[in-house]
């Protein structure tokens, strides 16, 4: 019988040579007269072990990684196809890898296990159970279930998803829309990408349920153009879902309608802001809109629109299939369910870690992450993307929860955790925050458009020791102006990393740009 071998096809695995490994495996196994069936699965999210090759055995799947193309011959020599554990890259049964076994995978329960494009695989792993349940229920019932789960927007703002849905349900209109914000632009985040590349039907299912809940018949996934593979996989998944009756004019024979289309962004970070995203979807420049009106009342093309992050929508099938309580039983305080954390940057064992709210950063960075990649001491960590604070060691023991982080002026954001070792120059990082805002500001409001340019200049003067103390005062003032006066989070939060660097790492602003203390 043909042995099933799994070689992932997500961006990370491919970026490290997974395609070459896949073709070598086939060639070398064939040359040895061994019959294998190659499955291109999604990634398990253990980025540090990618490409992670798995083999199916009578007692479960066995993992090997990180594999390079040069390892294929010795892996086959040492009994890869029998699940042998004699090779140095052998990791034993996949499910028993500590990093994976310690997680609470609700949203990411299927990733890496299935072939992302196989509807049969998806169904065999509880796929479409949430949709089947939703098709039997009234719209208000579905909204109640989501409310009861305590799910809050995973894009970063943490607004209760059920309440947003209720507003759209309650607003009469001839046309409503579900828009998925898949403009995952924050550095250090890749959970949306993994959901889309490794389990695309989950997002399709979540959006369809949202459509049923609020009475929307058209959905758009606004995907960033930096994710070409996610585009390819989503397009194909949508096509197959239509063929199988999970999208279209007659969902599973129910007479209900939901259509879905992927739209590509064009390299503008600001389009991750929901009103800017809607402008872009309408074919305009991505300028931020004033709120109110809320998109839930006047959104895409002026119609009531649910705008949710990928992971908010991806959590919905589980909630409908297993019930709100099963989801709400995880978490702490007002942060219910699980959070997809992404360990990134200078980390020894980076990857996706889905855990209930409440873990500490230290647990995450040390027990999962294993410290820095370089082996040098960890110095700063930026949680939540380029608009969130840099945290010093004194803040690594806070539990990860929206309220706890907000209390100290930090953010959980989209769950990205970017680690830096002690070679980092925090004044340079602060300068980059302003520079990034300068590049990405939509230009509509002055504090953001001009403030970011002035911010770069002022930090340059500080680093050049040009009237340093006066310029530090000016930088503090500028940050306050941007926080108070900007129209959206771009200008309003860009100062957070800058202020945190000033507060927690003041010495870095007292030395010259070349690193010499002065």
């Amino acid at each position: 019988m043909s042995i099933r071998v799994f070689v992932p096809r997500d961006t990370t695995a491919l970026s490290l040579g997974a395609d070459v490994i896949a073709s070598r495996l086939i060639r070398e196994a064939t040359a040895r007269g061994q019959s294998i069936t190659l499955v291109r699965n999604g990634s398990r999210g253990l980025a540090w072990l990618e490409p992670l090759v798995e083999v199916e055995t009578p007692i479960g799947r066995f993992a090997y990684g990180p594999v390079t193309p040069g390892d294929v011959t010795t892996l086959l020599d040492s009994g890869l196809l029998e699940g042998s554990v004699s090779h140095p890259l052998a990791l034993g049964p996949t499910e028993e890898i500590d990093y994976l076994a310690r997680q609470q995978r609700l949203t990411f329960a299927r990733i890496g296990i299935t072939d992302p494009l196989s509807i049969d695989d998806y169904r065999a792993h509880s796929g479409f159970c949430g949709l089947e349940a939703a098709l039997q229920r009234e719209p208000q019932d579905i909204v109640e279930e989501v409310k009861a789960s305590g799910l809050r927007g995973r894009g970063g703002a943490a607004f209760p998803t059920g309440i947003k849905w209720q507003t759209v349900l309650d607003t009469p209109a001839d046309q409503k829309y579900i828009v998925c914000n898949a403009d995952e632009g924050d550095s250090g985040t890749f959970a949306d990408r993994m959901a889309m590349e490794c389990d695309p039907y989950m997002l399709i299912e979540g959006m369809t349920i949202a459509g049923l809940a609020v009475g929307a018949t058209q959905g758009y996934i606004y995907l960033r153009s930096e994710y070409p593979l996610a585009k390819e996989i989503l397009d194909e998944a949508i096509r197959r879902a239509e063929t199988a009756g999970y999208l279209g004019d007659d969902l599973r024979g129910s007479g209900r309608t939901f259509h879905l289309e992927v739209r590509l962004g064009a390299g503008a970070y600001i389009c991750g802001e929901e009103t800017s995203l809607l402008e872009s979807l309408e074919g305009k420049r991505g300028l931020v809109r004033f709120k109110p009106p809320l998109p839930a009342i006047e959104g895409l093309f002026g119609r009531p629109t649910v705008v949710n992050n990928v992971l908010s929508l991806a959590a919905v099938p589980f909630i409908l299939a297993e019930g709100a309580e099963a989801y709400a039983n995880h978490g702490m305080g007002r942060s219910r369910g699980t959070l997809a954390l992404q360990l990134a940057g200078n980390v020894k064992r980076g990857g996706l870690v889905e855990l209930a709210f409440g873990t500490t950063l230290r647990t995450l960075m040390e027990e999962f992450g294993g410290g820095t990649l370089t082996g040098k001491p960890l110095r700063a960590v930026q949680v939540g993307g380029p608009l969130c604070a840099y945290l010093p060691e004194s803040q690594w023991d806070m539990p990860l929860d929206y309220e706890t982080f907000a209390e100290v002026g930090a953010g959980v954001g989209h769950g990205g955790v970017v680690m830096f070792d002690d070679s980092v120059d925090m004044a340079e990082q602060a300068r980059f925050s302003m520079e990034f805002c300068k590049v990405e500001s939509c230009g509509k409001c002055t504090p953001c458009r001009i403030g970011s340019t002035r911010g770069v200049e002022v930090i340059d003067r500080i680093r050049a020791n040009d009237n340093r103390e006066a310029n530090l005062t000016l930088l503090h003032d500028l940050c306050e102006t941007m926080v108070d006066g900007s129209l959206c989070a771009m200008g309003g939060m860009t100062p957070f990393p800058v202020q945190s660097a000033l507060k927690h790492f003041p010495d870095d602003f007292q030395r010259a740009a070349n690193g010499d203390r002065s």
Partner: protein
Amino acid sequence: MNQSQEWAPQAIQAEVDALKDKPGALLPILHALQDRIGFIPEAAVPIIADALHQTRAEVHGVISFYHHFRTTPPGRHVVQICRAEACQSVGARQLEVHAKARLGVDYHQTTADREITLEAVYCLGNCACGPSIRVDNSIRGRVTPEAFDELMDELQTRPLEVMG
């Protein structure tokens, strides 16, 4: 990247006509043109404006707003280097200095042999395995300066075409 001169007005018109009735058609049209031609030619602006009942200024405004769209032909390959924080923490700043020196160009410029256009990008979603770069539609992780040079050698070397 298609380098043939397929940007005759008729070809542009055909792309525009195929998409102009979509709601919010402008970005899909611009993507289609850039995917086919490699950039958005000046001649496309009035054609698009006419089809969508917009002014040329509006169309130009959209093209210039988005970093992804270009109005001049790129080299045979577009190489993007991630400049964002996660990649910075593992050496992206050094990589970008190295890349500019190796190719002899700055961002938004094309090598003299027209082989490579260098661009900056802010996150490719490969943040646990940086520094990351994108070469056309393929993403590469853990790119050291040495790995970058190897890759550029591959891209810039083409087999000799034997003249018949």
